[in-house]
């Protein structure tokens, strides 16, 4: 049986009396108090349509309501709301344990908040801090509706959850009304409260696919708005907590604008108003699609809205129909099947391997950077680079040495890739694209190696930050002392450093650059007080984990595992990695002691053997 989540928002059940207690005759909502017959007709029409789409024999329904259930949070509005909701549940056979309800700013009784502030006269409290009082009427409704099943706590950030056990999907309902008092309409959730409650939740729902539902919109969808309706100073903190908790989708109402958009790979779904007359009423159906064999789990996102055709037998509110205006999100992908590179470069196809599991000595909180966009094989810049490599035949096989300990059986000829002015320009632009797409901020730029120095020039001009360049650590001996100088001291003014380079394999070269102690070289000192080191590489040639959330962390070395090269490697945890393209390069499987005797390519001279460094030789005095 299909599992279908009905998502409605902004019902605005409206009292037929205005603030003066005068009965009104015209209303903006199809759901009005003392209009049971009209309300029932509206709700029944909706239920009929849902049942036509998914009969209860074929579907198992859940219900989510994302705030503004009433218009002015009046008792009579809540009473009628409870009645129409019960009708809806009866028609659609929805169990109350399968319902998630959160309040919106219209469910806050602002008069009650102001009165509480007037009576209690606590100078340390703002009007909006009187959560108990401002939500009293909503709480009465909520507790009455759910009876003993659950109760509403006005001080909680996480007010409700909906668990879909078999598929391990968790909808988390948040109260975003902590700054709703006398004036403000903006969403706000206290950071520490949210963090604490997420930690508690995590204990019971560690491996669940989490989706958050709240009322206030993050993104502006209504055409006249330029920003979402959320407190700017709080927005960053809340998003960061969501990212830390691996939230896979944000769903909200508020703007009465049904649409959807990906923001930094996170689907934002805005639900329109269920029963306001203008714009046209709307609701969403989320259908869970689970294919355990393929390892795929997703939720189809369909919008439905009312259309008016002025037909003879058409109800005054119109007819429900599927809407074509759905925005970008056709489905919420919770688990993707095994990804394939669609390009047909047999030699170049990235080898996707199981994520390397490293046992950490101490449990360390690894924070996914805000706005981080992982590598995607469909990315246009990546495809452009692969096209150049294919056209110029720049991917080579043989035996390539960068040092005694760094040897591979493949090599990408980057200097030829950058040869043509248009290709060079595009490669520089790809680097800037990564900076812009990921909204990277930094204080200092280093171009690493000749190619890295060339690639970095455009970013260094456009971003106008202090800039220098350094040779690769494996080529240090080939440069004069002046070429190796960083030329900048760091007394704490440079907290985030951006390193731009052409190719990164396992990050050892970068870690060596940061940590290697060399006489007269102050590079190591420069990095001591640095908080974050962002690395942008044109290519990543190492193993690509299936889990994209690991991409940013690929160059960090947090523990000394069995493969740790004590002589040439260093522990590092500050690296944040971005790369334009990925091509897996095969390492020479032998070690520095046996590759000359055991690697058949070297021993028998079978393939091209290229050295990009100078072997240390004894100087013989004559």
């Amino acid at each position, binding site marked *: 049986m299909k599992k279908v989540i009905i998502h409605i928002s902004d019902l605005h059940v409206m009292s037929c009396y205005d603030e003066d207690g005068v009965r009104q005759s015209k209303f903006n909502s199809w759901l009005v108090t003392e209009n049971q017959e009209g309300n029932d007709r509206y709700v029944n029409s909706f239920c009929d349509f849902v049942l036509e789409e998914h009969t209860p024999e074929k579907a198992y329904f859940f219900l989510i309501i994302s705030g503004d259930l009433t218009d002015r949070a009046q008792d009579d509005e809540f009473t009628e709301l409870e009645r129409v909701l019960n009708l809806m549940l009866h028609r659609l056979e929805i169990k109350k344990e399968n319902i998630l309800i959160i309040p919106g700013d219209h469910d806050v009784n602002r008069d009650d908040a102001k009165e509480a502030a007037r009576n209690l006269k606590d100078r340390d409290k703002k009007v909006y801090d009187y959560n108990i009082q401002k939500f009293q009427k909503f709480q009465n409704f909520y507790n009455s509706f759910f009876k003993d099943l659950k109760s509403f706590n006005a001080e909680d950030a996480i007010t409700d959850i909906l668990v879909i056990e078999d598929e391990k999907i968790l909808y988390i309902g948040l109260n975003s009304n902590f700054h709703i008092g006398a004036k403000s309409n903006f969403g706000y959730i206290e950071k520490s409260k949210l963090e604490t409650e997420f930690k508690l939740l995590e204990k019971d729902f560690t491996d669940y696919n989490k989706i958050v539902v709240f009322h206030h919109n993050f993104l502006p969808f209504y055409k006249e708005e330029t920003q979402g309706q959320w407190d700017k100073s709080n927005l960053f903190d809340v998003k960061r907590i969501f990212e830390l908790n691996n939230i896979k989708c944000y769903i909200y109402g508020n703007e009465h604008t049904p649409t959807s958009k990906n923001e930094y790979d996170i689907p934002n779904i805005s639900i329109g108003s269920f029963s306001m007359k203008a714009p046209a009423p709307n609701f969403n159906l989320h259908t869970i699609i689970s294919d355990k064999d393929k390892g795929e789990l997703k939720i189809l996102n369909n919008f439905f809205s009312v259309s008016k055709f002025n037909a003879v037998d058409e109800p005054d509110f119109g007819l429900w129909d599927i809407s074509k205006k759905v925005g970008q999100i056709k489905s919420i992908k919770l688990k993707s099947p095994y990804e394939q590179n669609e390009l047909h470069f047999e030699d170049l196809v990235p080898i996707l391997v199981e994520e390397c599991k490293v046992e950490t000595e101490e449990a360390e909180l690894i924070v996914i950077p805000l706005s981080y966009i992982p590598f995607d094989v469909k990315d246009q810049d990546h495809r452009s680079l692969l096209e150049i490599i294919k056209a110029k035949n720049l991917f080579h096989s043989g035996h390539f040495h960068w040092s005694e300990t760094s040897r591979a059986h493949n090599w990408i000829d980057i200097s030829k890739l950058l*040869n043509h002015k248009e290709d060079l320009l595009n490669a520089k632009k790809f680097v800037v694209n990564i900076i812009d797409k990921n909204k990277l901020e930094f204080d200092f730029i280093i171009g690493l190696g000749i190619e890295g120095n060339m690639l970095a020039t455009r970013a260094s*001009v456009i971003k106008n930050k202090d800039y220098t*360049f350094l040779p690769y650590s494996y080529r240090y001996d080939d440069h004069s002392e002046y070429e190796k100088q960083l030329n900048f001291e760091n007394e704490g003014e440079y907290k985030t450093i951006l390193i731009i380079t052409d190719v990164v394999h396992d990050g050892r070269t970068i870690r060596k650059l940061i940590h290697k102690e060399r006489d007269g070289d102050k590079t190591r000192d420069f990095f001591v007080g640095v908080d974050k080191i962002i690395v942008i590489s044109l290519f990543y040639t190492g193993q690509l984990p299936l889990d994209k959330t690991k991409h940013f962390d690929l160059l960090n070395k947090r523990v000394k595992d069995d493969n740790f090269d004590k002589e040439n490697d260093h522990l590092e945890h500050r690296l944040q990695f971005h790369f334009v393209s990925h091509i897996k390069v095969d390492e020479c499987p032998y070690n520095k002691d046996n590759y000359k005797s055991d690697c058949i390519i070297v021993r028998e001279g079978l393939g091209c053997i290229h050295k990009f460094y100078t072997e240390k030789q004894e100087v013989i005095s004559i």
Partner: protein
Amino acid sequence: MIISKIIREGYVYFNLHAEQTISSTFFDGDVGIRVSEIFSSALVRIEEDILLVEDISEKIIYLDFVRIDNAYKNLNTILMSLSKKCKIILLLNLKDVVYNQLQIELISGNRFNKRNSDDSGYEIFYFEKESIQYQYVYEEDIFQEEFKNLIQEFTEKNINEFHQSSSVYLPKYINVKKMISKRKNFFIFSLYQLSIKIQKFWLDNLNSDNEELPILICQNLNSAFISSILSSLLKLDVVILDHLGPVNTMYSSLNNKIEENKKYIIVSDVVCLGTEVKIAKNLITFLGGKVYGSVSVIRINTLEEKHLLEQEKKVKTISVFSITKENNQGIDFEIKTLLN
């Protein structure tokens, strides 16, 4: 980012074509130095930048319109706004076409406005009707003066460095990498100046439109930065020969990067004795390529003019700044051997 700002006591100089080139190459497209119209973005950047100049209200601003053939509409409002922030604006090398497009006739009439020699515009135009007389500033003079200051600032002294490519000692070392790192903006202005020369003396003189453009040869870390910027400004391809100097180590490469009968420009930071240029030339020629010339930011002229001319016949050279016997005072560059 402003590249052409040169601050002197009493005035600040900006080269509008250089600033527009930066806008049109990095921010609003990739046109390079061929841009000839000034747009608002370059002037807006200057307007933002002058707020960082100390005592700007007491200073004259020279806006050099050299190489600007057209102006976008409504720039006069930005000029008006700029003029309120400083003592006076003086427009240099303002062509009549640009003057008309700027629509600044209301401000014209200053008795010190001076027409240029071919009467095609103003050598100096005062952006105020009444004022005292101020000096004309020559682009080349002020740039050369500033570049000499730069060399003095970034010359490492008393080092007795053994020159890796030639059997000589250099008691002083011009640290171009430090120059790029610490004065990146002005260094890019120097590369803009180098591009203007390469375009004017070489690229504009190519025989026909079909003649293939020369390819830049990058041969070390400093040269990589220089070549990358030159490629953006001049729209030229780049070949990386890794690497010739200062430490000369060539690594095997799978494919020959030098193509037969193609023309190459060797790009260097400093040409001192020319050893690296000779190595590069021999390598390119051996591999079948042709050396079109050599460009450098700094050139040390160690020979008399007649001998220099003789050398030019072998490899023609363009540099932004030449250290000569005449201007070496203050720089005091020396080349030594054990014999002297």
